[in-house]
């Protein structure tokens, strides 16, 4: 099937080359970081995780979001999604590739990364995170590829795949749960220390992942001869609507607990993010934008009239995706570090090289996504044509 990725239009190749150039530029900046150290980023002694880990966290969500097409199809026999499960699975593969790369670029001594498996440490959540992320990646590659192959050959997929498909569903939940556990089990970090963090991560994942999938479906319909289908897109839209409502609800639960209890250790981070603390408020406009976008998304998605209009739906999906990205990709990680446990306020903003490395990783993810989607859609076109 791999050969399908080679036969493309000029536009397809142009896009791939542009991505390769971006990835190359990112890699050049990474080489600089590799030689100099993480000092070229905006991270500091107080804010020791930054943009990279935030992107990782957000993308774990996008990956987990793929399960929202797999689950209804395989567990509830919702036939319509059969057409697009492969897109969800391949989106997960691309996202997880980026997750791994973001972990690697964040390490101070990346060549020692295998120490994690050389000295397995069950009491470290990060150890488990590497296991579930790799497991979910492998499951999606195997399941996605084999099911697509069977579809191409006009046969039913092999029966040994069935248990793998079922396993992949709890795995999707586990990747984001374990990722939340990285943060919420740390004493002295009041912002993350909330039992609702994992559910909230999942809610925002099931909003961000499917909303990106809707946008991709709309694009695929326009650019290729394969139509993912109106019903499919509408069903996804309903999933996004529920998930984004839940995300906001969970967030408000968190805000209530922090503000009503009035415990400074919990309040201060929220204060920093939304009002600024001791005169520092770099993220304030971003956080309000994020809230605004999520609310707009909810209004447009919950209202059937606006949801059914695919143009408006696309706008709503952009709003939801951007809103959740700001929430997790910017606020969630820095917010937990500011103020520090000693109550110092050290602000954080990514530097130019840091952004270039990040864009490089996104470009690699986009290459993986483009190739996988090209294969999947070529197969679909083959069958229909």
């Amino acid at each position, binding site marked *: 099937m791999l050969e399908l990725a080679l036969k493309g239009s000029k536009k397809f190749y142009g896009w791939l080359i542009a991505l390769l150039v971006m990835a190359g530029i990112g890699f050049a900046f990474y080489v600089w970081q590799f030689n*100099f*150290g*993480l*000092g070229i*980023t*905006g*991270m*500091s*002694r*107080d804010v*020791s*995780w930054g943009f990279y880990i935030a992107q990782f966290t957000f993308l774990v969500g996008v990956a987990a979001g793929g399960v929202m097409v797999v689950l209804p199809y395989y567990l509830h026999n919702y036939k319509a999604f059969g057409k697009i499960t492969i897109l969800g699975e391949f989106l997960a593969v691309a996202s997880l590739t980026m997750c791994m790369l973001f*972990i690697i670029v*964040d*390490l*101070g*001594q*990346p060549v*020692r*990364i295998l*120490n*994690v498996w*050389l*000295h397995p*440490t069950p*009491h*470290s*959540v*990060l*150890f488990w995170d*590497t296991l579930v992320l790799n497991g979910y990646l492998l499951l999606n590659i195997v399941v996605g590829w084999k099911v697509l192959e069977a579809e191409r050959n006009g046969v039913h997929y092999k029966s040994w795949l069935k248990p793998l498909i079922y396993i992949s569903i709890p795995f999707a939940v586990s990747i984001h749960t374990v990722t939340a556990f*990285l*943060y919420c089990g*740390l*004493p*002295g*970090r009041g912002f993350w220390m909330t039992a609702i963090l994992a559910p909230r991560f999942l809610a925002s994942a099931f909003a961000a992942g499917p909303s990106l999938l809707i946008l991709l479906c709309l694009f695929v319909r326009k650019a290729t001869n394969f139509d993912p289908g109106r019903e499919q897109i509408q069903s996804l839209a309903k999933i996004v609507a529920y998930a984004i409502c839940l995300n906001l609800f969970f967030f408000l639960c968190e805000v209530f607990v922090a503000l009503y209890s009035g415990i*400074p*250790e919990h309040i201060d981070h929220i204060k920093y993010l939304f009002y600024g603390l001791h005169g520092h408020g770099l993220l304030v406009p971003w956080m309000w934008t994020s809230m605004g976008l999520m609310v707009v998304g909810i209004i447009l998605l919950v209202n059937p009239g606006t949801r059914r209009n695919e143009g408006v739906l696309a706008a709503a999906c952009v709003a939801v995706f951007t809103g959740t990205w700001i929430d997790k990709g910017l606020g969630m990680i820095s917010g*937990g*570090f500011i103020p*520090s*446990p*000693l*109550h*110092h306020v*050290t602000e954080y903003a990514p530097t130019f090289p840091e952004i270039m490395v990040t864009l490089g990783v996104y470009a690699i993810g986009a290459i993986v996504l483009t190739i996988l989607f090209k294969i999947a859609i070529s197969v679909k076109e083959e069958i229909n044509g």
Partner: protein
Amino acid sequence: MKRNRREFLKLAGITAASASVIGVTSGLTIAEASGSGAAKPDTTILAKNKKALTAKRWGMVIDTRKLQTASDIEPLIAACHKIHNVPEMTNKNHEIKWVWEEEFKHVFAEQEHELVNERLRHLPFLVLCNHCKNPPCVKACPTQATFQTKEGIVMMDFHRCIGCRFCMAACPYGSRSFNFKDPRPFIKETNKEFPTRMKGVVEKCNFCAERLAVGKQPACVEASEGAIVFGDLDDSQSEVRKVLNDNYTIRRKPALGTGASIYYIV
């Protein structure tokens, strides 16, 4: 053209690697470069030094009554940072500190209020790794690069650290520093008996494990002229236990259950 063997082997490595990328499994790689297989060294006795100070659980009491001003504290910090080759980074974001001073409102943030006694409000507090009984950093570390010794010291194995900085997020005391770049150019005077660190690893106070091993007290304790008492918290006869019994002491963030081993007399 003169070429040395290293360049030759490098070249050979590159071609061998590119050959495998092309997809050819070839037996033609240079076998010479890879060692003759791991053989364990002969059985030998690895033991402690006879002079070494030992304890079940090391701990420390800092008497803030005897450390009133910054000039009382600075020699302690200097003593530690000098023997451990702690660099003085110019960029504050990249700061590396094993032991340093903080104000009451930062050290005991949760106990700060507007009516705190004047002396405490301006008193410089010495802070360092708390060598917790239940260290969150050790729990978080995915490679056991940071671990707890049998004597209760929370140690760093710099050889193993992958620089993920999970321990820094886990530490509720901000006791850990990361080498954002090569620290060597920022070390004024190197102590040749102690290693420096390399870029990309996390470091912190080691309770002077290397000094305890040769029968010496930690450097800050030695420099404090009696203001810091160091000893075995599990030995009821130790001096540190006597001081704890005779004075009211407080610890940082006791509510977190970390079991800090640094006590403050205020």
